[in-house]
């Protein structure tokens, strides 16, 4: 069953994920709202501890045993994901929702050659008797591997990081999934290879109109690939808007800080702008805005009251500075 064209492909409202530990519980995702339209690339930006990876894992039901998830809405193609039991969810994950993770070599079965992986993926999409060899070759060509015969016979440990990520990309795109969740897909790669993979992604996405949720801490990566960007801090979304608008006129001080740092290096500033301080403790969060302790513009109100989202539907931010007068 597919969603009506105006309905978002993925809709999430008030997603909360917490870990139950011996001492109590820590909420690492605090009421996240996201929606992805079909064919869109949404970037989820945040640093370590922002909760961005946990958000991705929550959607994919890949959380560890002591995690608890709750959401007001968690809908994929109009289907309520929370209603599905694990077996039903398994049929969706890995077929309609595909994942690309940070460690490419680790995503492979080390005992099987590359061709086995591609064959399994293609069969999953096109059935047991598919012409997998031809499709595999085409897929590898599409990711810039000109002579796939040699690569097909390799074992995963013989692949370099960049090569592995290309093959994974080939596998994911040949699955023709409705949604791709990519978590830091280029973080471990060297700059040259990273740029190549990113350009590859962009080309493939434009051609196939795949929907991608890109999770990363690197603003420049997001700038290259994403139509819209959501910035996370300490488990909350603090700003979400179209990429261009966000970069030209960021509204949340944290977003401003991130962009300033990312571009300062490019601009050869005499001194890099810092965002002083550290993340607040999620076990005992401060009252008021979670960013207030590090914010240069913090008002008294910020320290005692939690700001809601302000702004238009397309560009919102969780900051009192954006409150309409």
């Amino acid at each position, binding site marked *: 069953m597919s969603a009506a064209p105006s309905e978002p492909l993925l809709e999430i409202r008030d997603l909360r994920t917490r870990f139950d530990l011996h001492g109590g519980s820590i909420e690492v995702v605090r009421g996240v709202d996201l929606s992805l339209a079909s064919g869109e690339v949404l970037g989820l930006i945040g640093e*370590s501890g922002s909760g961005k990876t946990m958000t991705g894992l929550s959607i994919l039901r890949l959380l560890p045993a002591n995690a608890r998830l709750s959401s007001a809405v968690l809908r994929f193609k109009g289907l309520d994901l929370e209603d599905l039991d694990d077996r039903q969810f398994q049929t969706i994950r890995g077929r309609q929702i595909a994942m690309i993770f940070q460690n490419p070599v680790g995503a492979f079965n080390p005992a099987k050659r590359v061709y086995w992986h591609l064959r399994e993926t293609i069969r999953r999409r096109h059935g047991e008797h598919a012409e997998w060899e031809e499709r595999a070759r085409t897929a590898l060509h599409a990711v810039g591997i000109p002579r796939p015969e040699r690569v097909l016979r390799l074992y995963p440990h013989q692949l*370099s990081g960049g*090569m592995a990520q290309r093959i994974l990309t080939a596998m994911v795109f040949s699955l023709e999934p409705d949604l791709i969740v990519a978590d830091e897909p280029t973080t471990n790669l060297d*700059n*040259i290879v990273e740029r*190549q993979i990113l350009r590859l992604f962009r080309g493939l996405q434009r051609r196939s109109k795949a929907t991608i949720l890109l999770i990363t801490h690197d603003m420049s990566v997001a700038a290259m690939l994403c139509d819209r960007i959501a910035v996370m801090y300490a488990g909350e979304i603090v700003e979400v808007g179209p990429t261009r608008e966000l970069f030209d006129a960021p509204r949340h001080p944290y977003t401003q800080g991130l962009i300033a*740092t990312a571009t300062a*290096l490019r601009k050869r500033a005499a*001194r890099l702008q*810092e965002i002083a301080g550290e993340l607040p403790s999620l076990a005992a969060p401060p009252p008021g805005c979670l960013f207030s302790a590090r914010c240069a513009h913090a008002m008294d109100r910020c320290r005692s009251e939690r700001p809601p989202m302000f702004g238009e539907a397309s560009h919102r931010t969780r900051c009192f500075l954006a409150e309409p007068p």
Partner: protein
Amino acid sequence: MSAAPDILLRLESLSVAFPGVRHGGDGRHFRAVDDVTLEMRAGEVLGLVGESGSGKTTLAKALLRLYRPSEGRILFRDADLAHLSERALRPYRRDLQMVFQDPLSSFNPRQTVFEALSVPMRLHRICPRTKIAREVEAALARVGLPAAFCDRFPHELSGGQLQRVAIGRALTLSPRLLVADEAVSKLDVSIRAQILNLLKDVQEANRLSILFITHDLHVARYLCHRIGVMYFGRLVELGTTEEIFTAPRHPYTRTLLGTLDEEVADASEAEPPAAPPSETGCRYASRCPHAAPRCAEIHPVTELVGGQHTVACHLWRELADA
């Protein structure tokens, strides 16, 4: 030994070979670092840039004698450190320190921050026992951390905080040279700025020399006075930051710089070869779009371009005019 008075360290024809890994063809051992000659001056930040596999980390570890170089000399303070015994090296150890890429694994998980900082102080008798606690607090303050961190264990600190402690630990011995091996690569972007600023401040305050290893050219540009580019164990270009960025001469350097620009085409950027390229000739020849037959046969000699700028390429003059 050294002509100019402010040369701190000089590597001469340094090579590091690993036994057991051989080149196809002539059967020699694989050289992770091949015939590198480099000088470091007092008070300068020298960047060493290259992809993974370029040998930059191996070079740094060989310089610090964590590996034993197979050939060449390491000239430091009127001695050649390359082939000294561990005991003979001891007096020089204080001067050469390192900050590692992964802050968490650079600390003994069973030791508190206090112990990690006080061990070098006690080993080298930096101060009398009674003053150690105060010295440790001072060391933490120097890197912007509160004294309360003394009792914490490494896993209780964030990456950025730990890297500060790592820098503080390296500084307790008042070294002359600090090697920073991808010291900010594993940190979040906003924390990176803090650490880079800290390194800059520390470097200027103490007239410290830093060998800054990175694969990120932006970071190198911000911090370094001079930059060396390495490819598969060889130093292919060296010059001031200005020279490298405004007039790069080696095709590989140009490719690296090209990645800074979003719109570069894919043409020359094949994957780095999985196996090391042949011994003879320029190691970049198999990937270089300008390669001439000469390039694969004869190893290019390092030539002076001008000022402090050197390059190892047969065709740099022709390419420069293009």
